[in-house]
């Protein structure tokens, strides 16, 4: 019941949004970065946004977060209240180092909240709470230089949480991290999502997907696919190799490859599994 209710709270609405950058010099082609994109973002969703470099996914996320970009047409409406009062929502980006200003996690989040003009009285408490929620509670005053890349990303994410952002926008935050740090960050953000956060997770790695995710795939500025992640991997016939994932040249997770091979051998698993856990479950439940 509660879930159905949540589904209906629209946080952000994009209607036919197109971004055409202004001409920088003569002879340059006016190519839109994103073209005619319409979508609704609901409260509590996990949106995995995938696409190659230059496909427009970062721009789409920026527009959705309320940043002014040159050459935007269309309608962007948001229906939420954030501590930032009409300012764009904070985004966490690839380089963990780039935006760290404080000398410790505590200082960094404090500085960010001050700059965003939260009431001074609640800032220290909010900062500590936010850092605790990403599992950095024990490292409040550890010098930033001694933190790993993954921990720095968690500090940046804590800044957004401290801002009580209605929507976490994470732009390839694991791209520069080693596998262990990536999985720590992903796990923490998944936990935040379970507690109700809305998340836009931009990534190149399909193995970070879960079955319940809403997947949006972009190519050359348009939305290729928008729906349950499972449908992205579905083939029309067992050996057709025509799933959207294969058609558009994305590297499928190992589990999905195994599941496809099983289909070719006449074993069709539903729903189509593409993570290690669901593959194992589907196999052990098969035929029982």
């Amino acid at each position, binding site marked *: 019941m509660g879930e159905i209710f949540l589904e209906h709270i629209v946080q952000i609405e994009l209607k036919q949004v197109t971004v055409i950058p202004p001409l920088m010099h003569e002879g340059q082609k006016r190519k839109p970065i994103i073209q005619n994109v319409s979508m609704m973002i609901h409260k509590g969703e996990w949106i995995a946004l995938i696409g190659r*470099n230059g496909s427009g996914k970062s721009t789409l996320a920026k527009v959705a977060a309320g*940043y002014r970009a040159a050459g935007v047409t269309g309608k962007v409406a948001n229906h939420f209240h954030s501590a930032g009062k009409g*300012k764009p929502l*904070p*985004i966490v*980006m690839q*380089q963990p180092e*780039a*935006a760290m*200003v*404080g*000398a410790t996690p505590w*200082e960094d989040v*404090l*500085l*960010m*909240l*001050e*700059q*965003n*003009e*939260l*009431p*001074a009285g609640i*800032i*220290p408490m909010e*900062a500590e709470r936010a850092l605790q929620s990403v599992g950095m509670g024990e490292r409040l*005053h*550890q*010098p930033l230089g*001694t*933190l*790993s*890349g993954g921990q720095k990303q968690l500090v940046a994410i804590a800044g957004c949480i401290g801002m009580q952002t209605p929507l976490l926008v994470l732009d390839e935050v694991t*791209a520069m991290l*080693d*596998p*262990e*740090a990536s*999985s720590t960050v992903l796990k923490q953000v998944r936990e935040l999502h379970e507690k109700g956060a809305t998340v836009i997770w931009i990534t190149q790695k399909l*193995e970070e997907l879960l079955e319940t995710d809403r997947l949006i795939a972009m190519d050359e500025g348009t939305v290729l696919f928008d729906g349950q992640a499972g449908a992205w991997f579905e083939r029309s016939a067992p050996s057709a190799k025509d799933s959207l994932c294969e058609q558009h040249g994305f590297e499928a997770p*190992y589990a999905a490859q*195994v*599941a*496809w*091979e*099983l289909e*070719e*051998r*006449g*074993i069709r698993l539903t729903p189509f599994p593409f993570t*290690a*856990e669901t*593959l*194992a479950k589907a*196999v*052990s439940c*098969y*035929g*029982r």
Partner: protein
Amino acid sequence: MGADWKLSSVDVYAQSGAAQKQLLHEVNHTFKAGQITLLVGRNGAGKSTLLETMTGLHSIHKGSIMMGNESLWIKRGRKERLNPEVTMKLGLAMQNAQSQWFAASVLEELRYSLKPYQVSGEAAEARMERALNEAGLPPEMLTQDPWTLSGGQQRRLSLACLLACEPEWLLLDEPTAGLDAVGIQRLCAVLAAHRASGRGAVVATHDLDALLPLADAVAVVSGGTVRAAAPAAAMKHAAAAPQALRVLAELHAEAALPLLAQERSGGAPWPAPSEVAAALALALERRSAEHKLLEAEQLSVAVHKAIQAAGPNDSSRSKQMMLAEEEAANVSEMPKEAISQTSGLQSTRFDPRALILSYLVLAASIFMQQSGLGLLLAGLATVLLLIPFRAFIRPWIGILRAYAIMIMIFCVVGGIGLEPLSFDSEKAWPIVLRFGKLFLIMMLGMPLLNLMTPYRLQRAIEQTFGWLGKLGVPIHSFALIVTLIFRFIPLLTGEWERFAKLAHARGKADTPLRKVPLKNVHAVLIPYVRSILRLAEQMSDALEARGFGYKKGKPVYAFRLRFDRSDAWLLGIAGGCGLGLIIIRSLL
């Protein structure tokens, strides 16, 4: 077949910083020619340091590095030098080696790499062509500016630069990071061809998914030590299990896939998806047949037993998890040590206002001194006052020494009279006094940076001069800029060091220093400035994305500095010393 590469009891320490930090400890390892060796281990375990040590970018404190019968380091006179016989045989691609270009075109870039090898004319052309071809770049690209290439093309170019040198050993640091599927395939092909011609490679990587199938040997780097491991065992030491193994582990946990070991086909570290699917299909078929005879429960018990019996061969999930947890515990302990080392005096101990005020009082009282005795006493006071902060002075000792030498030279030059040749101490003395005072003031200032964080300094400025804001002085913007500048300085020096290493590795300089060789400065400067500009752009984007720089109403202070007892002590002591020195000045 080339020569093996042997490291015996090698120790390496960090070159800068107050406390000498050991980076590598007792490394004994032989890298075999004709093999591809993977270096695996967590971030910060020392993989990059090991690669840099092997190529001479770090000088070693103990032990030896030998390639065949040639030593990497040779003594020439009093100084150790790199042995060109060895360095010419190896090519190192550092992490993010792409987008650090020195020249204006791809051709020039290749020539720059080839320069130390003194190949010219047609031989050089042929080499470049072959290298571009192997790396998968069209020859038309030679005239292009390397900066206009796409990210993937830049990575290929950095590989081409290595291949053009035809090194006996390829050393690659995270070569697959940011590479697309096609690029990774090509890289693997290059490595395989390199091995087929009897030469060796050492590759530091997290990407076991792509590279483990290719490896002959694996070295595990952990906490600065290195040990050999079988390729299959590498999985246990990797930061995270490759996807395939996670899938297999889950299948085992659910008792859905029995007898994995049989499916592993010749040499590959994990089965292909089709092999797993075949095994699963077989198991499912068998199960549906047995299902009619057996209760489902009994079956799962039997399968569980079968797996436990076959257990030791497989990297079982629970074991892997335990190992991961154990290492995670080790990792989390490390930073605590780092803190306890510096816990004597932390940057939050004093109010920056107290620090600056104390400094001004002391500096003024030293500056007032007019006599030798006054200078001596001021020097004594300075040394006594700096005793608690000596750890912060240590990194600056080089500068202090240089400054002291400069004073002496000025004295000599100032005191010498030519006709007749004599030394006039009357003339030299004022120079000693003046520079001596500056020397003391400089020394007192050195620990200041370590005693305050940029944020606390920003707050100190805002709390002291905040009222100027009412008069229209943009004091808050100024205070924020101060913080940002302090944040940017370490980035600048870090970037310079990276370029220095790169110039050193590609230019095959034989000095052990990690400074930019003088003849390369002009080549490094432009790419350095470009890279800094890119860094600044990245930083301003990131700051904007975090909500900095939007129009402000009233400033928000979530945290205020408070003058407490330790600040009072600090000011009291500084004031006392200052007063004492002023009294001395008036008495003498």
